[in-house]
């Protein structure tokens, strides 16, 4: 109990609000950029309006694309909210609007699942419970009484903890023999990037994939600690910039490098942040308090526990994680494997026995087909959609089977799922999918 009290005292001790305010501005700016980029690239149309079918998450099947103009309005609201977060204008409304709109869009279709989108949702959730707008914001300009000098320590440190979890788990995920000993899939990816400016020539050096693989693993597992420690901070941050710039050049990972380069600044000393935003703490600082703090802290404790546990849920499933992908998402497994599949679905009329092959391009865009062709939960979702479609188009009691050939890290393809069973009869859920074939079939 005393320990708990002391912990409470530590996490609620007042610290400068400056790092939090700067993080808010940078997060808002990165999200504004991300939204504008998404809209400008025409991805709303391509990803959420043009496709007729989507792959929602289990339990979130009620989340639907809002179509045209709904999706544009949603993105408009999201962009305005991101600007609001950046400027600290109507902060609570802005950050909660951003959290909800952004997460809604991500839940529409798991085709587009990215670890950094997941990170954005989590960061937005954390931002929505901290008073990040009470300095260096339009809200303070409007109502100067809002301004505070300090916030409870947890308001700043929870972001460091979250970033630490992301990096450390990304590092742990790289501790596999294929990544470290075989340098796979680095050996596949690097030669494909041999035309990049500056780093291109590195890509064809035969031993370089091992350097990249080990550097990546060591960087991920250690960088949060090196950022937290004052003496190594500058070196660690330089490594952050270099690492994310290089991976940003090599892979199509959008704004992720930018987000990480911006967010890790929160590790820097408060005085630096204060200088940046021209803030000084008076002799009698105004302390910012968080209402319902005890409840929030209890909630955060559970949140952190879940964050630590969720990446390990894969151990509850049999089989090879990279092959079955049961428990793969939401675990900071970032750029770990080269996986691709060719999935051919066959629809059989149970009455006539006639069977025909599906042309996936009739129903899915290239991105959806690519993701579906190697992920079991998407495969049964697609099978069930095909079942309903063909049942409505004259096929009686359709039997949906599929030959799904998947290649992992450049190895010859193997069948991913039992090609004889009716996939449309399989149910999505957290249970083990017994119809996934072992990789060594």
């Amino acid at each position, binding site marked *: 109990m005393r320990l708990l009290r002391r912990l409470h005292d530590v996490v609620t001790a007042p610290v400068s609000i400056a790092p939090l305010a700067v993080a808010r501005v940078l997060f808002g700016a990165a999200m504004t950029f991300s939204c504008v980029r998404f809209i400008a690239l025409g991805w709303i149309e391509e990803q959420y309006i043009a496709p007729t079918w989507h792959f929602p998450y289990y339990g979130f099947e009620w989340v639907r694309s809002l179509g045209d103009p709904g999706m544009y309005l949603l993105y408009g609201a999201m962009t305005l909210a991101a600007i609001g977060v950046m400027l600290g204008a109507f902060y609570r409304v802005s950050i909660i609007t951003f959290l909800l709109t952004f997460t809604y869009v991500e839940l529409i279709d798991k085709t587009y699942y990215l670890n950094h989108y997941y990170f954005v949702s989590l960061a937005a959730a954390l931002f929505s419970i901290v008073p990040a707008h009470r300095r260096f914001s339009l809200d303070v300009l409007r109502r100067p009484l809002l301004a505070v000098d300090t916030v409870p320590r947890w308001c700043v440190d929870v972001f460091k903890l979250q970033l630490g979890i992301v990096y450390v788990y990304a590092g742990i995920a790289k501790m596999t023999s294929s990544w470290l000993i075989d340098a796979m899939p680095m050996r596949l990816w690097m030669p494909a990037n041999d035309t990049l400016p500056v780093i291109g020539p590195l890509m064809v050096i035969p031993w370089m994939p091992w350097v990249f693989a080990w550097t990546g693993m060591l960087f991920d597992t250690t960088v949060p600690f090196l950022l937290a420690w004052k003496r190594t901070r500058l070196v660690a941050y330089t490594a952050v910039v270099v690492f994310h710039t290089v991976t940003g050049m090599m892979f199509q990972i959008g704004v992720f490098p930018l987000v990480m380069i911006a967010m890790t600044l929160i590790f820097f000393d408060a005085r630096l942040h204060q200088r940046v935003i021209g803030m000084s703490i008076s002799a009698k600082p105004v302390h910012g308090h968080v209402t319902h703090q005890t409840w929030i802290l209890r909630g955060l404790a559970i949140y952190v526990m879940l964050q630590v546990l969720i990446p390990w849920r894969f151990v509850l499933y049999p089989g090879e994680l990279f092959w079955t992908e049961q428990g793969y998402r939401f675990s900071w497994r970032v750029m770990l494997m080269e996986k*691709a599949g060719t999935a051919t679905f066959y629809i059989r009329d149970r009455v006539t026995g006639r069977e025909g092959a599906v042309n996936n391009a009739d129903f899915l865009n290239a991105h959806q087909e690519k993701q579906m062709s190697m992920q079991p939960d998407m495969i049964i979702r697609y099978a069930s959609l095909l079942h309903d479609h063909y049942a409505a188009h004259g096929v009686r009691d359709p039997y949906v089977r599929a030959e799904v050939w998947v290649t992992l890290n450049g190895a010859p393809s193997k069948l991913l799922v039992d090609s004889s069973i009716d996939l449309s009869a399989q149910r999505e859920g957290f249970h083990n999918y017994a119809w996934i074939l072992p990789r060594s079939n």
Partner: protein
Amino acid sequence: MIRLAIIATVLIPLFGCAESNAPTDTFDRQAMLQDLAMQAIIPAYMSMQTDAGAMIAAIDALTLAPSEVTLRAAREAWLSTALSWQRAQLFDFGPADAITGTLGQSVNTFPTSTAKVEAAIAAGDTSLQNFDRDARGLPALDYLLFDGSAAKVVAKLSTSPMRRAYLRAVTRDIAAHVQRVYNAWNTTYYADFVGRNGTDAGSGATQVFNALNRGFELLKNFKIGIPAGLQAGQTAAAPMSVEAPYSGLSWRLALEHQQAVRDLWTGRVDDSMDYRSFAMYILARGGTDLDRSTTQQFDAIEQASAAIPEDADLGALCAAQDPRIRSYYVELQKLTRFIKSETSSLLGISITYASGDGD
């Protein structure tokens, strides 16, 4: 700590690579793009253009003086053009991917709608300024030149100036479309294409890779699968959905299509000449297994197709549910995973045409 990390990153790979079998050959992707353009793409459009030009002359002669002699020449000119198209169709990207549709959609949408063709003729509408792509192109010519006996076709043409005008317009439309794409490749697009020598979604290698795969799917799904009634939801064969039902030359065209895919894959102009293409690329990346699987599967496809005589009527075989068609289709199906997912994985080429973020 840092020092330790640095030492580890330097030392460990030294142990690692001692027994590695990582491919050491560097593959010049830009040279491959140059080869593809100079040895495959531009020659394909050039011969298509030459053939389309000869077809205009033959059709002009036919419409000027319809006779069985001029008709025979026109039919031969059509076949040459349709055979050339089997190669050019594999490059339906870049200048061939116009806002109004791809070159493939413009010149080879099948099955043709005879109703739309006849309606356009009856209306005397030779503008072709509409989206009825299934009323023009090579399939419309297949109908206009081959529907019925030579005598019947000649008779129809002789009595209808509007039919002759439409025939001329469709022929010129094909040539104009090809000309535009050929010119683009010969002027600005070549340098543009060769310059995009990466492997990202917009790169030249990705474009050819995806176009090749789409071209292959076209053969498998649309030229064989649908006519044979092997696609999902079909309750019967659809013999009139073959590429050229009136001339009965669909199988001949399919064989050429099949050969074009293999030649592009292996980088073959004729038996004596090789250029850098995907086969060489995957070998340079250590893909010996993949190269072997692909070669074996191409052989299996050729074996399955050899069971069907070159002059066979594909539509009739489909209608008769000939088992050789199904066997052929099954072999085609098996090739997909090699030339699509395994190749994209090994080469780090993007399967999606549009870019998107990944992680």
